[in-house]
């Protein structure tokens, strides 16, 4: 009997599978297709203080082995999530959830995290620092170690639950940002967020996406994600949730060998709504094939 259990900051998951924020809504649509309680957990749709409609459409562009999205954090706002989505979620998901929080100022991050920290249904708070800082010239918080650390520190001061900072890959040195977050008190790290990408329509000769650029995700970015998880895992002493193009049970194992404790599935949920149960069912067999008894034992195996 193989063991798929993993532990994130004292929270033990039945398996390392966590659908990524923005690809799973608040879980309801998937719960109508299969029992989402078989997941380790899931990360809910990136939530901000105020409701947001997001960007104009088209928001989606196809790429080779991936896609670009520029949804722009459409969400109903933290108060609606706490008052409506979480009580609704209780009906179909009986485990703790990863609360993905976004903000456009440090004050917004702080207020959202302070509110969501009080919710029993939340296992960890995942802070997305890839949004532009409206008070800082619009540059994303996650693109400088100082700003990422400032968000981390501010959020940690108002929370009791583990705080994981979700890092952007659109930086020169992701290790520097990761270490700055660790030093500022982060309990863990999630990486990677989408990569900045763009497509142009040859018929109109204009960008496909109304917002011009967007986040590139899907199997095409998997090698970049593995590389970044590997680099960061070797440099920090806090757990990592690895993600970026994961599509198979083999990918999950590879991501864990790079140094991830848990693994998120993003874009693949959108093209195959059954990919998560498929991977969970296949994991024991694939583990046996590669002579792995316990997933927990292989974390960082590529460099340990």
């Amino acid at each position, binding site marked *: 009997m193989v063991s798929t259990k993993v532990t994130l900051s004292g929270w033990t998951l039945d398996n390392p599978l966590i659908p990524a924020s923005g690809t799973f809504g608040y879980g309801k649509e998937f719960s109508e297709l299969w029992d989402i309680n078989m997941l380790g957990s899931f990360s809910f749709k990136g939530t901000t203080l105020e409701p947001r409609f997001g960007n104009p459409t088209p*928001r989606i562009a196809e790429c080779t082995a991936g896609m670009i999205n520029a*949804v722009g954090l459409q969400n109903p706002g933290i108060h609606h999530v706490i008052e409506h989505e979480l009580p609704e979620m209780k009906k179909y998901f009986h485990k703790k959830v990863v609360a993905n929080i976004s903000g456009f100022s440090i004050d917004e991050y702080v207020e959202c995290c302070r509110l969501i920290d009080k919710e029993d249904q939340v296992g960890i708070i995942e802070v997305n620092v890839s949004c532009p800082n409206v008070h800082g010239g619009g540059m994303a918080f996650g693109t400088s170690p100082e700003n990422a650390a400032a968000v981390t520190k501010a959020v940690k001061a108002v929370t009791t639950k583990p705080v994981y900072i979700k890092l952007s890959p659109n930086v020169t040195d992701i290790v520097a940002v990761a270490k700055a977050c660790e030093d500022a008190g982060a309990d863990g790290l999630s990486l990677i967020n989408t990569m900045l990408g763009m497509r142009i329509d040859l018929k109109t000769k204009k960008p496909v996406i109304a917002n011009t650029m967007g986040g590139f995700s899907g199997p095409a970015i998997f090698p970049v994600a593995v590389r970044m998880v590997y680099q960061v895992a070797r440099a920090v002493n806090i757990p990592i949730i690895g993600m970026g193009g994961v599509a198979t049970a083999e990918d999950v194992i590879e991501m864990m060998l790079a140094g991830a404790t848990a693994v998120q599935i993003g874009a693949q949920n959108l*093209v195959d709504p059954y990919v998560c149960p498929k991977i969970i069912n296949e994991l024991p067999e694939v583990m046996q094939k590669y002579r792995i008894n316990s997933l927990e034992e292989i974390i960082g195996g590529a460099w340990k």
Partner: protein
Amino acid sequence: MKFVLQSQRALTSNVYHMQLTGDTTAVTKPGQFVQIQLPGFYLRRPISICDWQAGENGTLDLIYKVVGHGTEAMADMQPGQELDLLVGLGNGFDVSGSEEAPLLIGGGVGVPPMYGLCKELIKAGKKPSVVLGFNTADEVFWKEEFEALGVNVTVTTVDGSMGVKGFVTAAMNGGYDYVYTCGPEPMFKAIYKVMDEQGVSGQFSFEERMACGFGVCMGCSCKTKYGNKRICRDGPVLVKEEIIW
């Protein structure tokens, strides 16, 4: 869900009809769509359902226009090929929302879902009539299939090479009390204006670029008077009263 391609034929130079067999029990309303996984392409292709026979061994009729590499690959597919589909997506048309004599207006590749709708309306005891709008006579398809349902069919072509010369609005001359439509947005706006003038309500089936097709990615959101909606899940059909242009 696994489907098998049974037949495929060209209806015009770039519009194809494919018939598939598989489990269609998830299809409940006309105007719903499927998401087809194509080998070698990352995102599925959303295609509206033209007609279907319900059942575990049901049939699915899809009509699509070749507009890019994905639909080009679809046109090359041979009978016997297995395809992975998500079926029964979207809200579909509400047949019960209609008055006694609805007008169905399909523009170009917006024609196919009107066919399944027409059959359901007839089943529900309504007396639909149909307007099919195209640019030229070369582009006309599915006219005979509509006529075989015993309904009044008017074809409009922009260049006048078949039927009434002009846009579909040239055939909106009364005799109906409700409108169902699917087609390009400029056509929608023109129809909407005529409906306003005539005091007629109806339902519009929209199109938007989407990723998942089942309501989680928020790629196809739109604003309506009834709040934000996802074209793939809360749509593609919106009622006239909620539309914001």
